């Protein structure tokens, strides 16, 4: 799934970006973007206000076990007797933290590995590029599962690792953009005026690559949600946490779950919550795409 941002490989501008107003106007009118932003907004709100929205403490045993949905427990209860709806609401937090932290770490690492070396020296760039190519060739997620067992119950470490898994791809992506900018010469002129690499990066490179970084972030945030839930689903990570993946893990771990209607209120809601969140990120990502791809518009 590290291939997510590959789309952008095609999209990396190889020519100076024309001062084109149309992408922005198109963006505003894109229904995909609207829907995506609405979904993400809702997810963020639920995450923030889950203590207010949840009828119970998601970790507390608040009723008899395996209750079917009722007025007391709108989505029933799980095996020790915890409220499923409350877990669903609180689970938003785990996914959102994974998304934001994972996406941010991936892009931060990508800037360090892909862009900074370009500003330092060609040698640093070549070495870092080799490293990125190498990291890219690793079977990422299986490796993550291995390392995930190593992380044990440390959720934060797991998220850091998920972020790290996104560094190499995004580094390659940003690098080609940075190279293009370098070739256009405005870096050398800025440096000629005495700006250090970090200064140049802050003042010139980051603003110029902002859009690309945003898309990379959005894409990897979606991946982080997916991977975090997958690891929890596989039973890696803290089994007493509250997350969508873990809910599915527990539900599907129930003996003969398919012979019971239970799965419609225990398996489906967290699964669909993941899907909806991913949709939010992906819609935003896909909708932003054309705005930053100059060639895209010439053809229309």
């Amino acid at each position: 799934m590290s291939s997510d941002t590959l789309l952008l490989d095609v999209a990396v501008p190889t020519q100076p970006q024309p001062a084109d107003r149309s992408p922005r106007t198109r963006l505003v009118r894109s229904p995909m973007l609207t829907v995506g932003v609405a979904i993400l907004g809702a997810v963020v709100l639920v995450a923030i206000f889950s203590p207010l929205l949840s009828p119970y403490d998601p970790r507390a045993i608040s009723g008899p076990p395996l209750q079917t949905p009722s007025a007391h427990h709108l989505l029933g209860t799980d095996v020790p007797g915890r409220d499923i709806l409350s877990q669903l609401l609180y689970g938003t937090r785990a996914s959102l933290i994974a998304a934001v932290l994972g996406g941010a770490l991936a892009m931060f690492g990508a800037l360090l590995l892909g862009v900074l070396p370009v500003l330092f020296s060609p040698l640093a760039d070549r070495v870092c590029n080799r490293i990125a190519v190498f990291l890219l060739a690793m079977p990422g997620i299986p490796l993550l599962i291995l390392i995930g067992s190593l992380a044990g119950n440390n959720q934060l470490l797991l998220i850091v690792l998920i972020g790290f898994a996104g560094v190499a791809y995004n580094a390659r992506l940003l690098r080609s953009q940075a190279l293009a900018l370098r070739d256009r010469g405005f870096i050398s002129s800025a440096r000629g005026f005495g700006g250090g690499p970090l200064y140049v990066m802050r003042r010139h490179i980051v603003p110029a690559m902002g859009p690309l970084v945003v898309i990379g972030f959005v894409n990897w945030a979606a991946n982080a949600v997916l991977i975090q839930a997958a690891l929890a689903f596989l039973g890696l990570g803290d089994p007493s946490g509250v997350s969508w993946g873990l809910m599915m893990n527990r539900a599907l771990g129930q003996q003969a779950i398919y012979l019971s209607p239970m799965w419609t209120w225990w398996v489906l809601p967290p699964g669909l919550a993941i899907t909806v969140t991913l949709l939010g990120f992906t819609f935003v990502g896909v909708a932003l795409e054309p705005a930053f791809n100059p060639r895209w518009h010439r053809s229309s």
Partner: protein
Amino acid sequence: MTTTSPVAPSAHRQRRRWAGAVGSYLFMVYVLITLNFLLPRLMPGDPINGLLSQGSANFTFGQQTRTALRKYYGLNGSLLSQYWHYLWRLLHGDLGRSVVTNAPVWHELTRPLPWTLLLIGSSILIANVIGIVAGIHAGWRRDRPMDRALMVGLVSIWQFPPYLLGPILLFLLAVKLHWFPLFGAQTPFSNTFGFGHRVVDIAAHLVLPLVVLTAGLVAWDYLLMRAGMVTELGSDYVMLGRAKGLRERRLKYRYAARNALLPLVSNTAFDIGAAVTANIVIESVFSYPGLGRLLFESIGTRDYPVIQGVFLLLSVGIVTINALADVIYGRLDPRTTA
């Protein structure tokens, strides 16, 4: 991974480039092999305890049993000596024996391998075909209703993680409707079936995992192809071709689609990475006897030799396919062959 040279390289430079590529490939494999050795040993837990826990609850043993087991499985020396041992045996094609089953790792790998290859291979093939066909049409007629429907449809399906889509399909189509078998890659002991019957049997078992895996890949291939088409449409030669009055079909398939296909070649390697990943979950859901399951189980018992074996296969496989994709890409892309 492919560099575009502005000038045609001399034969000498070409050779150097090849040597460099092969060198870095071998280096990569070596680093992977070393990681394969180190990572499992960094995990908390001990394979000998994993093995002992396979015994009955009241199986009693003294310290000497544990020492003897360590020695038997070559886990008694220092990490460095174990490492040399591992490299030396690997050089001789010996992957060791599983600590849990005491069977050669090679056997453990070759049993699930065909099933994983079948599942991943057919899924990547189907995803690419659907993605390419849909991508060409959508990209050529961008923003038409067809494009929008495909876009929203495929992208939405893509967001159903395998751990949701799998259980849903299994429940509806296998448990409730009985259209597909519940588990496995084939009816057990079906070797008495005739050839045709066997093919049908294997196909029936393949459908659900295949659909779930393909759903995760197809949107990506589609987006890539569509973006490629859109980009090609924006390029000068298409405009020129249009201006010259070239036939639409010719332009679409002979020129635009051909060029837009290039990124899909290098993407195949990523498809494989993604498929291997999704496979771990899918094989769990459908009890499909593939490598992902083997990997997951061996991690659970800390069965070092098996973990090493699966990783070796996966990582070297992915690195090799990457390298091959580079070569093919170079062949296909006129800019890199010069």
